[in-house]
């Protein structure tokens, strides 16, 4: 019963007609890719610059956004760090492999987890399996040159352990994500990922990597993707001789998205002397609950999902490979105000730690830039059965832009309801 009617998320990006021109050459010079894909002379575009613009953050960047939202998502803008260049071969390959292995398209968290495992593998290959040395290896990834080059761009960290990645604006056209004509800055071209090397079997004792996330409970949809992303990367590494000849193996830690269980999982993983490092957790609150435990036990954690500003603060052992809320909130406000020239924006936000955090920093930046936030509308992801009343509320505020600080599914539903209610046409 697998639906194959949708193309893989990133495959879709790669197959965009506009990008074909740049294909094959984009990895050469610094900004070649950007020039080839985003000619600003083209004008017109699909977004309907006069109508109500729809903007989402990195949580929306998922093919499912288009599958669920259908025509309503046309022309929506998504700000995301995950793709340096839409024609990157590594991304296409990942997406194809993932879809083939699992029968569904990867999402941002699958890709981030895939990269987090890859980051660790690269470090372990260099410094061995000592926990402290692995942390030093992460901390040493300070610039684009020393960072890990994966499918979500180059991962490197600032002194906090927060990740620094350039942002690109994607838009929806013809049922696919394509690179938008309007960009915040000239994007840097993707650096080609290293070839995986020849196939050989990994022998010897396995190296254990803890992978923690909500594999059951309310957020298990994300946990599932995290698990699949990690599984795929581990299988790939092991098929190519493992790490220094030893196979990599995941120890799954199901935190159920609940703080107290995250603490149990963290304790269990950290106290397992064979676990060399942790990928996780997903929820920011879980990461925060687990942080002191990993810090005390001196094991590094690299979160592929926690965006709260405080996650990496105050502990040298905590890292993440995605945006902080404040960074992204600022980008969105800047994009709406300066690039789209919008004045009145309605913010819908998911009332969880991701959505509320992103909204908070978006509103603060909007205020600074003189962008008026006419309404902030929270929703509860797990209990909202109809988004129409929320959109009706927005309708009467007469916004010229909608920003959804939330995840792809709800963003798609809001877009859909907005179209149904006649707010966006």
């Amino acid at each position, binding site marked *: 019963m697998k639906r194959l009617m949708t193309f893989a998320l990133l495959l879709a990006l790669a197959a965009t007609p506009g990008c074909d021109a740049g294909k094959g050459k984009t990895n050469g010079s610094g900004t070649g890719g950007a020039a080839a894909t985003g000619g600003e002379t083209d004008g017109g575009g699909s977004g309907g610059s006069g109508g109500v613009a729809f903007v989402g953050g990195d949580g929306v960047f998922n093919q499912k956004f288009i599958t669920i939202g259908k025509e309503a998502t046309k022309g929506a803008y998504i700000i995301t760090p995950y793709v340096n260049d839409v024609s990157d071969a590594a991304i296409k390959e990942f997406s194809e492999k993932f879809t083939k292995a699992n029968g569904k398209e990867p999402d941002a968290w699958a890709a981030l987890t895939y990269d987090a495992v890859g980051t660790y593998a690269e470090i372990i290959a260099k410094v061995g399996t000592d926990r402290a040395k692995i942390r030093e290896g992460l901390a040493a990834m300070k610039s684009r040159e020393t960072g890990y080059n994966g499918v979500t761009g180059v991962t490197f960290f600032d002194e906090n352990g927060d990740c620094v990645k350039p942002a690109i604006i994607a838009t929806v056209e013809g049922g696919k994500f394509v690179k938008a004509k309007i960009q915040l800055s000239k994007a840097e071209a993707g650096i080609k990922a290293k070839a995986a090397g020849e196939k050989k079997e990994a022998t010897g004792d396995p190296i254990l990597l803890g992978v923690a996330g909500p594999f059951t409970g309310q957020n298990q949809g994300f*946990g599932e993707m995290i698990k699949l992303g990690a599984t795929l990367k581990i299988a790939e590494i092991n098929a190519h001789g493992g790490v220094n000849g030893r196979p990599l193996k*995941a120890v799954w830690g199901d935190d159920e998205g*609940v703080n107290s269980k995250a603490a*149990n999982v963290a304790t*269990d993983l950290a106290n397992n002397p064979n676990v060399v490092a942790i990928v996780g957790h997903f929820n920011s609150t879980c990461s925060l609950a687990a942080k002191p435990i990993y810090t005390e036990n001196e094991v590094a954690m690299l979160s592929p999902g926690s965006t709260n500003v405080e996650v990496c603060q105050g502990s040298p052992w905590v890292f993440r490979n995605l945006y902080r809320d404040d960074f992204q909130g600022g980008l969105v406000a800047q994009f709406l105000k300066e690039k789209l020239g919008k004045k009145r924006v309605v913010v819908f936000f998911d*009332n*969880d730690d991701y959505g*509320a955090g992103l909204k908070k920093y978006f509103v603060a930046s909007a205020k600074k830039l003189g962008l008026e936030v006419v309404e902030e509308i929270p929703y509860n992801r797990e209990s909202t059965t109809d988004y129409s009343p929320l959109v009706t509320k927005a309708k009467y505020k007469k916004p010229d832009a909608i920003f959804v600080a939330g995840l792809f599914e709800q963003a798609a539903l809001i877009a859909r309801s907005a179209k149904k209610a006649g707010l966006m046409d």
Partner: protein
Amino acid sequence: MIGPLRNERTLFSALIALLFFLPFLAMALGGGVMGTVISVASFTLIYLIAAQALNLQVGYTGLLNLGLVAFVGVGGYTTAILLSVPAGHTDDLAAVRYQSKSGRAISIGRDGRLLVWDVESGARLASYATTREPLTAMTEAADGTVYVGTAKGRVLVWSATDQDVIGEYDVSEKKKPVTALAVHGDGKRLLVGLETGKVYDVTAADGSGATSFQAHWLPVACLRVLTDGRILTTGRDKQLKIWPAPEAGKGASASKPSLAWKKMPGRVMAIAMTGGDRTALLGLSNNSVVLADLQTQRILRTYKHHARSITDLALLPDGRFLAASRDKTVSLWKRNEDKPERIFEGHLEAVRDISVATDGKTFVSAGEDKLAQLWTVADGASQRLPVAKWALVAFYKRVLPELEGGTQKALFLLDPHFLAYMTVTIPAMLAAALLSLMIGVPTLRLRGDYFAIVTLGFAQILLLVVRNEEWLTSGPSGIKNLPTLFSFSSESDFALRTGHYYLGLFFFAISLVVMMRLRDSRLGRAFMAIRDDELAAQSNGIHLAKYKIYSFLVASMVAALAGVVQVSRLRIISPNDLLFWESILFLCCIVLGGLGSVRGAVLGAVILGSLGEVMRIGISRLPPNWAIPAQVRYIIFGVILILVMRFKPEGLFPASDEELDRGELEKHRHRDVEASLFRIGSDDVGAA
């Protein structure tokens, strides 16, 4: 009758003793296992305590409460809120002034608060709060009066002698944020730079006699009054201008600057005048500090070190200078060297402002990490102002004598952190009791399923409250960075890992005693009479409302203890600790164990509390090719519930007949009293 109960007491004593020695046992098994065992055990203790509370409601009183997690949550949230009350600011600091003669520091922040500190002890001397109007700029007159600008274009006048705000006035009608302030040489008039680029010149005391001029077209960044009365302004437009001195007694209103330096290499964010009015150190947004000749508009020297914009500069009496930067550090420079002499690291976020003591030996910095810090120039040592992030802990630190390592651990009951936790336990229980009244009183008339859905509804509403009332509960991201249970936790592994466990064990023991005492008391028997048959109980003279409320009060206070343990364990609390599912799980614990039986509640909680964790760990340890999906755990869970209910519907460890008969006993007692008084169905006499 005495027999089985005595056995039970022995059983529980043995259980508590076993749990007491569990960490030692686990330790004997080797390091790795200990952490996991303690973690799972302390997790289970929370269930144990909550199950006792729920058993009181459902098992004893027959009130099908589906919202017990609300009590646990309120207990936890009250604990967290009270513990997290900051001794300092709740938002980024904007500026700080160090009045070294009086040993005081004044800090202002985006939280709209002005705080006065005793620098030596870190104690807070005074505070003033606006209506959440961020405070943005501050300057000090020679007499110690401090002027503070707000984000809504107002100026507050803070008197050092009165320790209070003695005046406040609007500067511009448009309510644009004040970005810079400076006092004229005579101290009578005040210059106010605004975000609009305008500079107002007003009477310092009351804001009258305002004049203004458009200094820049972007926000004003710095304002200085030179020794000859001329006014120096810099703006975000990368320009530096000097304006002619106003006539005596009048405000400045020049239309043309006497000097304009238009092509600065960056925005000038900070100024320190060095050679009279001629040369100045300028802190730029391009991360460097430059020594500039203002007359000739030449840059004499560039000091490069920082990675982010410079935010403030300060001169030391000996000619060296300090530069604060958004890169979280402060640097100390000799003017003739290209490398900084010392870097002061310690702020967690950008440093916004620095203020040096008159003797130049110490300075105070303010950061966007909500902290002010006192630094010694000579060795870079720093001390946080406030001494502690948490007001309550700070209070205990001040009043308690400081103890040395060994004694500190021996007298752990007097530890400031521990005392803070114990102190907030009482309001946590009271808050839960208050909530229980809010739920209990309206639901008095409701029975069975109606009661169940209302309690569930209250718990859902509470969940929405903690999510939405961000000012109180920090919203969905939860209350973070709470203190550890002991101040020496960071040094003692054992205290860190087992402190919360023993706290939980202690509270569990209390809850057990309460439940057993209740069961054997008249109160408990009245509960059970209500459970068995409300009508019969009432007609036997048991005051339904009163006893139902009692049941709520006791249960909620016991449940609140579980919340306290939870917070001490995780040091964070967020709405996902209050999910509806938890209440259901508590209910499953007691029904599985045997409703109304203390043993049953203990057994049920041990099984259901730890089953999930044990299965989780078990599955994660299986060979990977078994590939058991995590969901299987919950399926097993569901099947166990169904099977137990199918084959042992009274629970695994049902209440004994004599436990069940207690209600009957109480009814008889009441009936006897009633009969002797010839009163039927009226107020409860027996409980008097």
